């Protein structure tokens, strides 16, 4: 499974988001490849991904992608990320 974490530049907040996603997945014992991406390349990365997590402002810019797009309000709130991943992945 491939999950993409997206922010504007792909080097700051998306890396934090990526780490928190990995932490949550580890707790649920899910094996996934989590990638940080910037909004420019995210559309490409999303073509082959199963799930995209990003902020409310960036989500519309992704446009139509085959992956499910989940909006995360607080990138450091592990509980929120857990709830949304549980919903999206049927954990």
């Amino acid at each position, binding site marked *: 499974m491939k999950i993409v974490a997206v*922010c*504007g*530049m*792909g*080097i*700051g*907040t998306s*890396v*934090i988001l*990526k*780490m928190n996603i*990995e932490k949550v997945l580890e707790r649920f014992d899910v094996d996934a490849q989590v*990638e*940080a*991406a*910037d*909004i*420019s390349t995210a559309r490409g990365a999303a073509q082959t991904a199963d799930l995209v997590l990003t*902020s*409310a*402002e*960036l989500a*519309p*810019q992704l446009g139509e992608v085959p992956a499910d797009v989940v909006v995360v*309000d*607080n*990138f*450091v*709130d592990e509980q929120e990320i857990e709830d949304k991943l549980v919903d999206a992945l049927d954990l």
Partner: protein
Amino acid sequence: MDGFVSVLQFIGNEFLNVPAYLIGIIVAVGLIALKKNAGQVVGGALKAALGFLILGAGANVVTSSLTPLGDLVLAVTGAQGVVPTNEVITAQAAGEFGATSAYILSLGFLLMLVLARFSPLKYVFLTGHHMVFMSMLLAVVLSVGFGQGFLTVLVGAVLLAVMMVAMPAFAHPWTKRVTGNDTVAIGHFSSLGYIAAGAAGQAVGKRSRSTEEINVPKGLSFLRDSMVATALSMVLIYLVFTVWGLIKLGADAYPFLEADTAGSFVMAGVMQALMFGVGVAIILYGVRTFLGELIPAFQGIASKVVPGAKAGLDIPIVFPYAQNAVLVGFISSFIGGLIALVVLATWLNPVFGLALILPGMVPHFFTGGGAGVYGNATGGRRGAIVGGFINGLLITFLPAILMQVMGGLGLGNSTFGDADFGWFGTLVGLSAQSGSTIVGILLSVVLALVVFGLACAWQVKVVNKGWMPGADRQKWLDAEQAQAKARSEEERVARRDARRAAKTAD
């Protein structure tokens, strides 16, 4: 014995002096400390090393597109023209100063953990690219005074560690006003701009409403895409200077871009501008690749050493709190940058020889957007406009001053852009380059102690006491809200009474 020495020499020269291997080794050590398995350690280390090499490849592309621009700006204005881009200057400096900065980075990170553990400043700075930029800046300005070696690494690491715990503390009261809670801190080396914006907002916007009540056209949100913003700003800059070159030099301008007609000259400029965008994209890919490995390793260690410390995060973390303010702040920051450029060109360059700092859209977007959010939090619309504008002035004047202490590297047509790099880099540079090594060390230590002491005092006396800026305005907003609520309640009651009256009349 000789064999042993030559093995050590081989390791020293061929591994520990090669930045890419060094970064790989640091990541490997971090991952081993986190008890990752062998595959993860090798994979992580290799990816980090490759990321650093990608950085170098991107730097070549960027440099080859910036060189003709620099020559052209010099020919038409007589001054050095610089596009401040942290990624670019870091990539350009990585060849010469990469190993020194990697040592500063890792030692500085460990020292930061010690400071966060044992001082009141409980912040763990996690904005990886800013750590990398700051350690590169310190390696550059300290090397001019101390040379590359143990001394530069030690002093640089102390200064880096102090900045990483001090700046989130200084900005924290305003950060709390922005986020409305106390869960995250801002770890971003443009803090001076955000603090200035927050303070200015408080001064000008006592009765100004929030930017979030305006309907801003969504058409500007494409600028969030850094690839678009970078390419667009460089195309504009190149167009201005190619056309200016044609007017001033005529056909003599053609050789700068190896063109033979006016049309091909301008279009060659556009192509160079796009190549700059390509180079920055490559550099960002490299940064992403090695930070993706380095930050988790660092964070894992930090959460063990200083549990419960606040994470200092990148500035876009505050953008969702006031999305309109990001655009307002960006635009007014950009205008501030243009006005500052005019001041540089007409006064500071002729009199003091400062370089012309051309406005880059990416720094104005991220730091200007952040300043807009901070200004809005204390001063509404007026705060966002004034805060962004002040940020624009800061990130134009400060890099121009910083160029003065960067030695030979100032010639690369780029420099560090964000506010803290400017003021702190200049102070460190002036200390280290004061003439004698002893005085340089003393001044650097004094600088570290002053920043650290002020931050501790600020944390204990201000942040821990719960002071928040703009309390008056918040009261006014709360009162307004209460009034609006009361009014709508009154209206509801009035409507209900009217309905009842109509009913009884039937």
